[in-house]
């Protein structure tokens, strides 16, 4: 286990975790209204199967998974469906997307669960299906449907399950508290994941700035076979898959490759916890622990809240804000995204809601690049951010790609160290978006080209058929005139 230099590059941002690290998880009262988005995962929207006016129970399926990559959504509490309508999405665009609005009846009546069976005795594919049906997605931020990741790992000979408890983003302490207070269930979840994919070892990685979590997890892991609590140094972006795998196993995931290429499957601690709840207690994912913090929050806290709770309600629970916050963030300050309004609902992949004040954000005017190379040394992926940004800026997106844009994990280390405050990551988001839309456009053109060809073929065929019919008719006329001429004469 590499301790000295866990991976290349990386930065040490101020942690601000002391604001909430020692505070126990508080359970949020049921809010007056829940806005449960149909899209809380990578992939397509879930499809609502309830209607306005229907009564739903806690844990009841209210939207089934959409086509292709998707995940279902369950009712976080019992109540009446008030409407299914677009609400502000937890998305940097500030656009709206469909959500099921539930008016809780405050009884919190759960759906009936089937008799619980020992999950370790069930077939693996059945367990994977249960995880899919529970709507579990990666809770560290990526929101990739967990079951899809598991199923693809089943046939790829995964040796080691890495459970990511690094929580390397500043401010966030939700995973820290989860590990400190609910270590057993995380370990159960990790063992279940190992069982589902048929792996051997489990490594639970925790950064060395979380002593409480480490000791709680170590205590819970006593007597476990092939399970190790790995203390990793505190360095951002430890929680990113490639960096974490390098730090824990020493293996380097190849560029463009996946974790399973080196025999590893990684899941976040909160995801492991959710998987344990789903398989051992038949509970779908309807709540999560979220850190509400930042200099503008009166009482920063770790809150266990229902999915769909408006950010405003969470912040009020934490005493509201001092002054108006300068910046609202979903997720951490490095990779989270800015939102404009407090109306956004809590979704499965959001680990933090931050309200930052003026002096917590450095956002002075960007000045020209002085080619100091700090971004290069900070980049954990070994890229040359200054060149990538320069090319993106001039619309040379292929050039940016040649410098490894597709390997960039948007971790923000480069922008964090840049003395000129160049919005490097913003350039990469823009360039990646542009390239994606180009790919989509050319895919569409292939499709329309095919449509045009099919149509042309059809028209040609129809024309040929018409010509043939005409020729046949002409032929008939030529042959029959004698007959047809006779008969009218005979009649008259």
């Amino acid at each position, binding site marked *: 286990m590499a301790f000295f230099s866990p991976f290349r590059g990386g930065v040490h941002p101020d942690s601000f975790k002391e604001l909430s690290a020692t505070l126990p998880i508080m359970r949020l009262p049921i809010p007056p209204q829940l806005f449960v988005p149909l899209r809380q995962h990578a992939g397509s929207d879930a499809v609502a199967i309830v209607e306005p006016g229907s009564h739903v129970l806690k844990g009841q399926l209210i939207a089934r998974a959409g086509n292709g990559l998707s995940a279902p959504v369950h009712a976080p509490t019992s109540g009446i469906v008030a409407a299914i309508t677009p609400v502000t*999405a937890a998305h940097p*665009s500030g*656009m709206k997307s469909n959500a099921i609005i539930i008016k809780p009846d405050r009884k919190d009546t759960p759906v009936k669960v089937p008799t619980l069976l020992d999950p370790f005795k069930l077939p693996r594919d059945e367990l994977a299906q249960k995880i899919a049906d529970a709507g579990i997605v990666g809770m560290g931020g990526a929101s990739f449907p967990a079951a899809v990741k598991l199923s693809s790992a089943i046939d790829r000979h995964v040796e080691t399950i890495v459970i990511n408890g690094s929580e390397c983003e500043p401010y966030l302490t939700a995973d820290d508290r989860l590990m400190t207070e609910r270590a057993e269930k995380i370990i159960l979840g990790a063992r279940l994941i190992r069982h589902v994919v048929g792996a051997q070892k489990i490594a639970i990685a925790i950064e060395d700035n979380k002593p409480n979590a480490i000791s709680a997890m170590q205590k819970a892991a006593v007597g476990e076979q092939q399970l190790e609590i790995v203390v990793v140094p505190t360095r951002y972006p430890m929680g990113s898959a490639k960096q974490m795998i390098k730090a824990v196993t020493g293996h380097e995931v190849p560029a463009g490759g996946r974790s399973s290429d080196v025999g590893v499957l990684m899941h976040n601690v909160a995801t492991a916890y959710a998987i344990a709840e789903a398989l051992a207690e038949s509970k779908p994912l309807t709540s999560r622990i979220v850190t509400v913090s930042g200099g503008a929050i009166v009482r920063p806290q770790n809150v266990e809240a229902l999915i769909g709770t408006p950010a405003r309600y969470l912040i009020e629970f934490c005493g509201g804000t001092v002054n108006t916050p300068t910046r609202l963030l979903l997720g951490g300050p490095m990779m989270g995204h800015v939102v404009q309004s407090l109306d956004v609902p809590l979704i499965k992949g959001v680990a933090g809601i931050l309200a930052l004040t003026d002096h917590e954000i450095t956002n002075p005017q*960007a*000045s020209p690049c002085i080619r100091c190379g700090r971004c290069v040394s900070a980049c954990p992926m070994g890229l040359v951010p200054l060149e990538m940004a320069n090319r993106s800026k001039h619309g040379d997106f292929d050039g940016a790609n040649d410098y490894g844009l597709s390997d960039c994990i948007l971790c923000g280390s480069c922008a964090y160290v840049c003395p000129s405050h160049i919005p490097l990551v913003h350039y990469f988001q*823009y360039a990646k978006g542009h390239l994606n*839309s180009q790919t989509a456009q050319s895919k569409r053109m292939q499709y*329309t*080209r095919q449509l045009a060809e099919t149509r042309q073929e059809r028209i040609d065929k129809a024309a040929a058929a018409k010509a043939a019919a005409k020729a046949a008719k002409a032929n008939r006329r030529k042959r029959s005139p004698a007959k047809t001429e006779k008969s009218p004469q005979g009649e008259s």
Partner: protein
Amino acid sequence: MIGAILLLTLMGLILGTALGYAAKAFHVEGNPLVEEVSQMMPGTQCGQCGFAGCTPAAEAIVNGDAEVTCCPPGGTSLAASLAKKLGIDIKLDSLQEGVVFAHINSALCTGCTRCYKVCPTDAIVGANKQIHMVINAACTSCRRCVEACPENCIDMLPEQATLDTWYWPKPKAA
């Protein structure tokens, strides 16, 4: 020794036949580059580039008589791949982006089917005396329907960004 001679003769025969066959099977008519470029074009023969169709446009582009950006339905993605193919430098972000789609105003549509008949990609659905509709995914924004509509009820509207298609705009300064 004899074995080696036989083997070499045999190899010569097989490879020779293969080459001869390949020369026939992969024979190309005309300028192969024009052929290739024309395969890259949308193939809807819409004529918005000012040429009689996609192949003449491809010819003009290869001969340098037309810009790689001359094809509106192809948009930036086509311009980019053409520029790459022909080794031309272009600034992509200066191109007008937003795709537009035909949109039929249902209040005015009489169901005359004229738009339906001219659409090169069958993107319009409808029937006699029924309101017609455009399937965005199949529309190449060629505007033929706009010209064909006697009621003037077709507009080209910009594509609405969705959570899937939205992406960060270019940073303003620096």
